[in-house]
């Protein structure tokens, strides 16, 4: 199974703190003061610090995931932290906006009138707009709607 949910303690405890993750991370190389995956894991394991805010920075480029000699996936760790962050009430505003679009229309990004004109000029189909009731229903069942509303209130 390549990508199921993590049992975090079991998966992360094998971390050797070798730093291969940070060494391969474009964010760390560009701005080590802002994002250091090795240190994030160290602080999580030793101090129990959950990196909710910083998890939303991860590029999800999977460079560290591919290279970790112990098979730890920091990409999946960050995804799990984003899930927890969302349930605790914090979703960055940009992400919240896309998620709200998804809930309303079934699509995260909407077409502008200008782009619609350009599509037609290129001979491309207009994009069907409107609501997708089936998607809205599924997102209600899974609890997505509640998570989003909880984050909006905070």
């Amino acid at each position, binding site marked *: 199974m390549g990508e199921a949910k993590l049992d975090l303690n079991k998966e992360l405890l094998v971390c050797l703190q070798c730093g291969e993750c940070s060494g391969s991370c474009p964010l760390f190389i*560009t701005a080590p003061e802002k994002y250091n995956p090795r240190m994030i894991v160290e602080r999580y394991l030793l101090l129990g610090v959950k990196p909710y805010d910083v998890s939303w920075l991860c*590029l*999800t480029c999977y460079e560290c995931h591919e290279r970790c000699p112990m098979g730890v996936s920091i990409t999946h760790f960050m995804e799990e932290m984003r899930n927890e962050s969302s349930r605790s009430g914090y979703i960055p505003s940009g992400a919240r906006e896309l998620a709200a679009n*998804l809930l309303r229309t079934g699509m*995260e990004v909407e077409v502008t009138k200008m782009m619609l004109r*350009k599509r037609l000029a290129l001979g*491309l*189909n207009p994009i069907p707009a409107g609501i997708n009731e089936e998607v809205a229903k599924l997102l209600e069942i899974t*609890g997505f709607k509640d998570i989003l509303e909880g984050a909006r209130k905070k």
Partner: protein
Amino acid sequence: MKHGKSEEKSEYALFLGCYIPTRVPSMEKSYRMVLDALGIRLVDMNGASCCPDPMVVKGIDYKSWLVLAARNLCLAEEMGLDILTFCNGCFETLKSANTMLKENRELREDVNGVLGKVGREFKGKIEVRHAVEVLNERKEELKGLVEKPLTDIAVAVHYGCHLLRPSTILNVDNPLNPTILDRIVEEVVGAKSVNYRRKMWCCGAGARMGDPELSLRVLREKLVGISKSGADCIALVCPFCHVQFDTGQILIRREFKEDYRIPVLSLPQLVGLAMNLEPKQLAFDLHKVSVAPLLEKIGGVA
């Protein structure tokens, strides 16, 4: 590379996603033209939702991400067709979900429990493919369609993370040292694919929401490398990378006072030029960074 039984099909369910049709229609137009020339029929998927994206929606709630992806897969199963996508994000989401749901019975039963409430069931009958894989397997035919090899052009290819990684699932090419795009550029288009510093880096788009300035700094690292390589243009296969490179150069000019002006093409646009398709049809006028210098160099009309 392993492609399974789906190789060499000539009809697909087209999963268009949200970002290409609304932000990068030039990518859609050029892919449609190139695939049409190869005799590949694309059937639109009615009622499809967002894939949904593997950063925001998967970040908010993993199960919701998986359930909506499974629903999209069900639509294609009902059409009896494999899915073709032009977008790295859609590819990662749909291929990951498809693979996991096929392999993991417990997960499949859990997801089908939810889908059953809207009358659907994931059966695991189709495959998910990126259009690049199709161009790659049809390289010989594609070569036959090239009327104007772009022999004087140097191209900086950018793969985009979710075409390749996580490699255990996506299985398109070597995740850290791929050649699939370089080979299409060299063998089909006839141009030179250059090496450049940070070639395998992410474009930085993933950090746009959390820290726009940091996102641009990652992009800048790539642009410095591409600029030094002497490339005439960038060729890529993901709409998020496209916007990051194209609009990002305008933002970098404003924020960092650095002017790169490197034209950003989606791979099918570059292939289209080599096929001598009209530049106007390839929708270069929608680009933020002018493609005119490239078109002049290859002797087309800007």
